[in-house]
C-alpha cells in the first residue's frame, strides 16, 4: 500500500501577517512556517496505512528551500521519502497551476491513495485536491473523517461528516482523498525519528525534471490572479464609561448606544 501526501507549507496560524506596501502579497521575512495542519492528518493516515499494509509513504511538496523544514517534519513522523518541487517558475501559481505541477510529479510516483489536506489554512481555497483528481482522472472524496481500506487494497470505505449525520462512501482506489480534522490524531515525532529524517531521501525536482514548460505552471499557468491584499479595518479601541454606579453610567451608555453606535 503506497500513499503520497501532498503537503503545503503555510505560516503558523498565530503569525502576525503584514501586507506588502503595494498590496501584492504578504511579507514573509519574519514568519514562522509550519506544515498545513490539515495535511498533517494526511501524513498520519498514510503512516497508519503503512503500518497496517506495509508499502511506503511519500511526501510531495512544492516550494522554495524553506519548505525542506516542513518536509523533514513529515519524514520525522515516519514518512519514507519526499519529493520537493522547487523552481522559480512555480511561484505565484493558483490552485490549478499548482495541481498541474503536482499531477505531473505524481506520474512518476507509485500510489494507491493520494492525500491532500481539505484546504490550506493560508489561502483557504480548498481546490488543489479536487483539481488534482481531475487532472489524474482519479475518483476523489473530500473532507474524510474515517478511512477503511479493503484487504485487497482495491477499494476503501470512507466517512465524511455532512449536515446532521455521516455519509459513508465506497471509493475505488487509487483515489484522491482530502483530509479533515477528526480523521486521526497526528503523532509527535520521536527523537530517533527526527534524527533519521535527516538522512531520508529527498528528491528535488525543477521544471525541467517534470518536463513541463514555464507557461503551464506558476503565474503563467494560473487561471485566477490575486490582484490585491488589504488588511481588515482596525478595530477602534473600546470605551470605558466613567461614573458612580449604574444610576450614573446606564443613561450615558444608552445615550452612546443611540447616538454613536446607532444600534438602539
Amino acid at each position, binding site marked *: 500500500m503506497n500513499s503520497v501526501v501532498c503537503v503545503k507549507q503555510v505560516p503558523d496560524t498565530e503569525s*502576525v501577517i503584514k501586507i506588502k506596501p503595494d498590496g501584492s502579497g504578504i511579507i514573509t521575512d519574519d514568519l514562522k512556517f509550519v506544515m498545513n495542519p490539515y495535511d498533517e492528518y494526511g501524513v498520519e493516515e498514510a503512516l497508519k496505512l503503512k503500518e497496517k499494509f506495509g508499502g511506503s509513504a511519500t511526501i510531495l511538496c512544492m516550494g522554495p528551500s524553506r519548505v525542506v523544514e516542513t518536509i523533514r517534519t513529515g519524514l520525522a513522523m515516519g514518512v519514507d521519502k519526499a519529493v520537493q518541487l522547487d523552481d522559480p517558475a512555480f511561484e505565484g501559481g493558483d490552485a490549478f497551476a499548482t495541481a498541474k505541477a503536482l499531477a505531473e510529479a505524481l506520474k512518476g510516483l507509485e500510489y494507491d491513495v493520494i492525500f491532500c489536506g481539505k484546504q490550506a489554512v493560508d489561502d483557504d481555497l480548498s481546490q488543489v485536491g479536487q483539481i488534482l483528481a481531475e487532472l489524474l482522472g482519479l475518483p476523489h472524496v473530500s473532507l474524510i473523517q474515517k478511512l477503511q481500506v479493503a484487504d485487497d487494497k482495491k477499494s476503501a470505505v470512507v466517512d465524511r461528516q455532512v449536515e446532521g449525520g455521516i455519509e459513508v462512501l465506497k471509493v475505488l482506489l487509487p483515489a484522491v482523498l482530502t483530509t479533515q480534522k477528526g480523521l486521526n490524531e497526528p503523532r509527535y515525532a520521536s*527523537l530517533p525519528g527526527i534524527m533519521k529524517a535527516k538522512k531520508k531521501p529527498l528528491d528535488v525536482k525543477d521544471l525541467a525534471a517534470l518536463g513541463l514548460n514555464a507557461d503551464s505552471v506558476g503565474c503563467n499557468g494560473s487561471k485566477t490572479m490575486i490582484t490585491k491584499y488589504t488588511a481588515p479595518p482596525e478595530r477602534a479601541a473600546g470605551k470605558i464609561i466613567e461614573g458612580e454606579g449604574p444610576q450614573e453610567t446606564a443613561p450615558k451608555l444608552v445615550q452612546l448606544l443611540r447616538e454613536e453606535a446607532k444600534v438602539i
Partner: protein
Amino acid sequence: MNVAVYKILGIPNFILLAIAIIVALAFFINRVKHLYFILRIGKEDDRFNDIGARIMFALKRILLQLCVLKDVTAKDLAGLGHAMIFYGFLCFAFSYLFMFGRGFIPGLSFHILGDTFAGYFPLLLDIVALMVITGVVWGLLRRYVVRPSRLESTPEAAIIMGIIASLMVFHFLMEGFEVNIDPHETASMAFIGVAFAGLFNNMGIERTTQEALFIASWWIHCLLVLGFMVLIPYSKHLHLILAPFNLFFKSMEPRGALRPILDMEEAETFGVSNIEEFTWKQLLDLYTCAECGRCEINCPAHLSEKPLSPRHLIHDMKVHLLEKGPHLLGGNNGSESGTDAQAEAAESGYDGPALIGGVVSEDKIWSCVTCGSCMEQCPVCNEHVDKIVDMRRYMVLMESNFPPEIQAVFRNMENNSNPWGIGWATRADWAKDLGIKILSEDSNVDILYWVGCAGSFDERNKKISTALVNIFKKVGVNFGILGAEEKCCGDSARRIGNEYLYQMLATETIEILKGYNVKKIVTQCPHCYNTLKNEYPQFGGDFEVVHSTEFILDLIEKGKLKLSKPIDKTITYHDSCYLGRYNTVYDAPRKILQAIPGVNLVEMERNRAKSICCGAGGGRMWMEEHLGKRINEMRLQDALDINPNLISTACPYCLTMFEDAIKEKDVQETLTGKDIIELTEEAMA
C-alpha cells in the same frame, strides 16, 4: 574469666568463635558482593570530583545526625530516636571489639585503655543501652500502635527491632554475671549490671552456674551481633552501610540542574526504560533507601491521593533491580559482567514486569510535579526527580508517549516559543506603551529583564511585569528586554522529558544573550530563574541571574527603594519550589514583606523547605489533573487554615494556581492572591 580458652564439647572457644565469624562473614560478603556486581550494571557517572567537600558533607550529616535531626518537629520526633540509636550503636560497636576480642585474647578488657576509661565506659554503655531500649520500645509503639502513615509495619522491622532489644538485654545479663564472677573486670559504675548481679545472687544461683550462664550470654550476644551483621545487607538496614557512601556520592551540581543528554546526535536511545540504564549512583539510591517514608509524607502527589509515592517508587525499583539484576549478570554473579551478547542472552531469561508501565505505572511517572520535596527530606540524600525525568525522557523522546494535551504545548513552544502558542511576534506587546528598551534596538543596558512566557502572555501576569517595570523606573535601573527575541526558557519542556526541545530553546537563547553581551539578568519567574541560573551553564550560558525578589530586597537594603505606604493586611507567603527548595531563596520575599509598613506576615504550617507545591511544577501546569484531589486546592487549604487576607507568591504559576483555587473554593471575598512585586509597587513611596 578466660573466655578464649573455655571449652565447649572439648573445643576451645576461640576456635568456635573463629568458625562463627568466618561463616557469618562468608554470608555477609557474598551478599555484599552480589549487590555490588548488580550495582555495576548501572551506567557511568562521575561522582569522584571534589572529594574533600564530599567527605565533609557526609561526615557532618552522619556524625551530627543532621540527616534525621534537621526535620525533627514536635509532631515527629523520630529523628531524635534515630540519633539515640545511632550514637548507642557507635558505643556498642566499639565495645564489641572487646567482646569479640576476648574470645581470642585472654584477659582483654577495657583496662588496656586505662582504669578511668574502664570505669566510666561501662556506665556509659548502661545508659546508652537504656536509651536504645527506650528508642526501640518507642519505635515499636509508633509502628504497631501509633502507626504514622509514613512507616510500614513489616515483619522485617519487627525482627530488627527485636534483635536490637535482645542485644541490649544480653548486654545487661553478661554484665550481671561478670560482676559476680570477675568483680575487678567490671567496674561497679555499671549500675544496671550491678543490679542484675545482685538479683542473680539473691536468686541463689551457684557460682559455676553463673559462669556457664555468662559464657552462654556471651555466646548469644556474639551470635546476635553476627546475625545482625548478616541481616543488614538483606534488609532496609543496608542503609547502615550505604548511607555514608550515598551521602559521599551525592550530586555536587546545583539541585535545580537536571543532567543533560549530551550526545543527542549519536545516541540511539534516550532516557531510561530498563533498570540497568540508570547510572550506578541512581541504583545506589535504591539500595540505600531506609524506607523511612519522609519523602512520602511530604510529596504533594501522594498527599493529593495520586498513585505516586516516592518511597514506593524507590522501593519497587529496588525489588525489581534485585530480581532482574541476576539475569543481567548472566548467572555468573561474581565475575565481570561479560560481553554485550552475553548480557543480552541473559536478559532474555528475565520475564518479569517492564520498568515503565510494570514496575512504575505511567500514571505515577506523570503525577510528579518535580517539587523536590522528596529529595529535600530524604535523610540519605536520594535523588528521586532525575529518575522520574529519565523515564519521562524515554516516554517522550522514544515513544512520543505523554498526556495528549502536551502535544499542543510542545508544538506551541516549537512554533511560537511559548507554551500558550500565542504568536511569538506579539511577545512584547504588553510593553508597547511603557517605553522600555528592546535589546535589538538598544543593547546598552546594565540589566536584562527576562520577562518569561507568563509575564509576556498571561493577562494576569502581564500586570506583574508592568509593576516590575514601574519599580525599575522608579529606582532608575538601566534595563531592557529581549522583546520578540525572548523565547520560552524550556523549563517545562525539560521537566516533561523533552530534552531535545529544551536544548533547542536553550541553545538559541544562549546565543542571543551572548550576542548582546548580557551580563546580569533579572527574572520574574522562579522557573526561568532556575533554568537560566543552574541549567544554562551546561550549554555555555554563564550569566549572573537574580530573581526579582532578590533584586528588590537588594534595592531596599541599599536604601534605593523606600516602601512607606502601609498595607494593612495579614499576609502569608507561599514558597515556590524552584525559588525555595531548589535555590534556597526563602528569606528575600519574606524580608520584603516585613519591610512594608502594616503587613502582618503569617506562616502556613508547611513553609520554607517543607512548603507544598502549588501543583504546576514539572510541566504539570500544562496537564490535566485527572487523578486524586487537586493540589492547588489542597495548598489553598493550608492558607485558609491560618486565615490571612492575602496570599503572596513570587511565581506566576503559583499565582495562577492559587487564583484558580480561590475561585473554585469561592473564597474571593476574603482572600486574594498577589505577587510580591505588586505589593512592592503598591507600597512604593
